[in-house]
């Protein structure tokens, strides 16, 4: 089924709606015309009133106004009914069937939404929402992102790298710890912009002050930067044209956000966006499962683990999940993965079972090598 089919069915509805609109206007116009004609006739001619009026009656009966209306309305309503039926056939009838009747704490949800808006820089909406939804301590949610977005705004709107450079200088050590070359890239961009503006002397001075100290760690990059001098204001014709392109600005802005969030201990992508997208991926399977389990409502509400996997694309795999090949259970704190001397990995419970509670040596299920419990090491993914 394509969206095209839906669109075609709806095109018919639209068509009939237009038909109804025009036809109904036409019919009324016809009636008005006939009556006005009759009025003129009555006023101007000498013919008998009854005849003129009888003529009007015949004319109106010919037009069959009510039938016209009803006809068009019927066609329109039929087209709509067909379209609605098509929708019900194509789309999932009720996506709330998989919804569990658990308490979803509204204040928590509201906090999450407010945070999301602040993270995206939509402060006005965030504030309005916080006041309407009575989100407590919205200032605390807001503050980390205020600084980030004001730096971003300077970069994006006025191409002013000042605030960004100030922030980078303040957090230099932490950034180096993370191995980020953000400071270098920002200085580079500033230098390139100066060159483009033709301020060669200033650019050189700038490079000496800010870029030279970084030369040890980033030799190749610094060489590139000084080579730019050869092209000056014709940088776009040089091999280094991309250094001043708008997309480079965008890249740096993204890098800035990434580092800022990282230093704050915040995720880069909005967690609300990620969760909702994951939900959309997993919901079809959940709905199928709910339909199958319809008879066992109690079990559905209380289950701790879904009986089927919800296969998400790999972007949603954030941390390791170990599944013991023997017991087919997920690893947890009580039952961690253990490395056997042969290199295969089983859960601790499987190993205890195989070794009859640490009393004997056991053979690995995957290879002929034997081992004891003492030789196994816990793994940390």
């Amino acid at each position, binding site marked *: 089924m*394509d969206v095209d089919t839906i669109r075609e069915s709806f095109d018919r509805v639209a068509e009939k709606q237009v038909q109804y609109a025009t036809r109904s206007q036409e019919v*009324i116009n016809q009636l008005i015309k006939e009556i006005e004609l009759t009025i003129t006739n009555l006023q101007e001619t000498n013919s008998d009133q009854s005849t003129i009026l009888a003529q009007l009656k015949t004319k109106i009966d010919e037009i069959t106004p009510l039938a016209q209306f009803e006809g068009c309305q019927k066609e329109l309503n039929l087209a709509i009914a067909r379209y609605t039926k098509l929708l019900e056939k194509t789309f999932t009838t009720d996506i709330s069937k998989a919804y569990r009747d658990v308490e979803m704490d509204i204040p928590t949800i509201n906090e999450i939404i407010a945070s999301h808006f602040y993270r995206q820089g939509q402060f006005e909406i965030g504030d309005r929402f916080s006041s309407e939804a009575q989100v407590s301590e919205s200032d605390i949610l807001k503050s980390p992102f205020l600084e980030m977005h004001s730096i971003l705004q300077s970069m994006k709107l006025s191409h002013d790298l000042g605030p960004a450079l100030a922030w980078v200088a303040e957090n230099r050590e932490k950034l180096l710890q993370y191995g980020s070359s953000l400071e270098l890239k920002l200085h580079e961009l500033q230098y390139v912009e100066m060159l483009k503006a033709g301020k060669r002397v200033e650019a050189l001075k700038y490079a000496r002050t800010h870029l030279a100290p970084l030369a040890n760690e980033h030799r190749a990059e610094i060489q590139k930067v000084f080579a730019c001098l050869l092209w000056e204001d014709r940088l776009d014709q040089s091999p280094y044209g991309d250094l001043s392109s708008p997309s480079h600005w965008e890249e740096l802005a993204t890098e800035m956000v990434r580092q800022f969030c990282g230093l704050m201990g915040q995720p880069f992508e909005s967690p609300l966006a990620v969760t909702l997208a994951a939900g959309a991926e997993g919901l079809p399977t959940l709905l199928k499962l709910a339909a199958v389990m319809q008879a066992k409502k109690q079990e559905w509400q209380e289950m701790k683990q879904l009986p089927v996997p919800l296969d998400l694309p790999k972007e949603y795999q954030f941390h390791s999940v170990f599944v013991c090949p023997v017991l087919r259970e997920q690893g947890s*704190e009580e039952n961690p993965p253990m490395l056997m001397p042969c290199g295969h990995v089983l859960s601790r419970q499987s190993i205890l079972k195989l070794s009859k509670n640490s009393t004997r040596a056991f053979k690995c299920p995957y290879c002929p090598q034997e081992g004891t419990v003492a030789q196994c090491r816990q793994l940390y993914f």
Partner: protein
Amino acid sequence: MDMVIDPPVAAAEGGASVTSSNNNGGGEEQRKKKKTPVTEILKLELQLLRVPVEHLKKSLRSSQRTAEKDLSAVLADISSVTASPTVAAVPPVSSLTSLVCRLHGIKRKLEESSSAEAAQVQRCRARIEHLEEFVPHPYCECNSNWNNTRLNRVILDYMLRMSYYDSATLLADSANIQELVDIDVFVEAREVVESLQNKKVAPALTWCAENKSRLKKTKSKLEFLLRLQEFIEMVKANDYLRAIAYARKYLAPWGPTYTKELQRVTATLAFKSGTNCSTYKVLFDVCRWDFLVEEFKQEFCKLFGMTLVPLLQIYLQAGLSALKTPSCPQGSCPKEDPLSQAGFMRLAEPLPFSKQHHSKLVCFITKELMDTENPPLVLPNGYVYSTKALEEMAKNNDGKITCPRTGIECNFSDLVKAFIS
């Protein structure tokens, strides 16, 4: 220093998901007949398409009925004029002139409703077009825009249901999704909800009358509950005679359907509002009004083909279940995982986690999958990282490995391979 001139560098790749992707290049293609299949994800969007259609049906029902009524009246009057002109009290010409005026009136009304209906048709169309823009996985870049719009739509649906109308309007305007959301439909609900919150049933009753036939089809209890509340308010005000008369007129017809409840409520006449008897005290409680608001919202959503639970909660629950693993509560989730956030973990607590059939291991350093092409290596302290990450580290550090999480040092040669199926 040797000067090395680089060869021309390829154009930098477009920005990541923070910036919006430019769809102009794809515009032409979209204008040609693009085949977008209705994938599983699109199938979830029934509400998106149904609500404007239901709204259209509703408008048509009332405008068609009015037009027919008015037109029939005019035609009937024409018949009486043409039938017996001489007997008529008013001369034919003036009758006919006034009839023409009325016809003009009908015409105007039809024009207004037609343009309203055309606008609703346009909304239906805009939503179909929005679905056509969906590109299924793995073409993720295009999807960022679509996913973002969906996120905004879902948040907006939540705002409307929770009656945060100002935020909703602001969001719709800033995200430019006015045609994809149902603010206009909820405007209708707003008046009723606010009046119920002010303890007035009249607008709600009007709404019930307007939608009588649909509510009857779904066997709705709403009108009965509203009448009950009015009765209770009268009893509270000690207006007994009025209450009894009211009950006779408005509650009696519901007797056969909801006998027990009716009996219980009418007994409040005897107990009065100050009663301490719990069965009856609860009936006088102010929170019954909140219950009425919820009941109304449910009927309203049902009528328009909306889910009874906000979309946000449906998607959130599904997402939390999909992302949750048994190791999550330990707080070992990397910060990119939504479940590392306290709020999300709280919401996920009562939800089941997803089953996994096979191990999926993610390297702590590179965040890449550790599989047969990039197998996991084990340090002497049991910590595991991917071969790629450890080889890179060894290369840059003369063969030495430092565990990023524990700081322990060892040599690359001390590492052991792990075999995970």
